[in-house]
């Protein structure tokens, strides 16, 4: 059973719109949730993260909403730009060892 799931697989929005990327998880011991942004040919770059003690984390145009009870979280990208076009990965970790479990990613396309 996949531990971290992402939806949709792909998402297209127009420039200026808000993109909403969803993530859910199975393991209730997960308590740290980073989102990574990956461009073709590059490694994943840490974008924003949240701990399970919080229900919201904001950093500029990027906001994570977290629902511990439902084991769901979402990444909202407001005022989307063509440069935001990338694959976004939700990941989870349950301890302090650095072992991350990744979702399969959402490919975001922002059309100008």
């Amino acid at each position: 059973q996949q531990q971290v799931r992402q939806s949709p697989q792909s998402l297209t929005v127009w420039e200026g719109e808000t993109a909403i990327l969803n993530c859910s998880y199975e393991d209730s011991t997960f308590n740290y949730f980073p989102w990574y942004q990956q461009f073709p040919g590059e490694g994943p770059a840490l974008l924003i993260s949240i701990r399970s003690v919080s229900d919201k984390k904001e950093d500029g145009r990027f906001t994570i909403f977290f629902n511990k009870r439902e084991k769901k979280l979402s990444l909202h990208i407001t005022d989307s730009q063509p440069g935001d076009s990338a694959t976004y990965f939700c990941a989870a970790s349950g301890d302090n060892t650095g072992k991350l479990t990744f979702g399969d990613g959402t490919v975001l396309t922002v059309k100008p």
Partner: protein
Amino acid sequence: GALVYQYPRRTICKSGTSMRMECQAVGFQATSVAWYRQSPQKTFELIALSTVNSAIKYEQNFTQEKFPISHPNLSFSSMTVLNAYLEDRGLYLCGARRHNYAEQFFGPGTRLTVL
């Protein structure tokens, strides 16, 4: 800022041969290094987790005999893919983390092609 370099960026090897890849952390002390493989379909597999002064922990389906790892100091780690075959192809990523910090920073990866 925290930077992670990986070398080489791309490599091609013949089936049955081996190749070594390196990971260097700059600007912070990488007490923990995780090696992942990202498949052509973009899914991530954790190969092993290495912490300085501790035993390296390999995930199921990955062994030290196939993927020996060295993590001799707080800025450097290397991994070798021994006896590579088609199923070993992918993007090998190094994720480095400071002690007691959750943030994991990745390098650009080493893309392995096996002929």
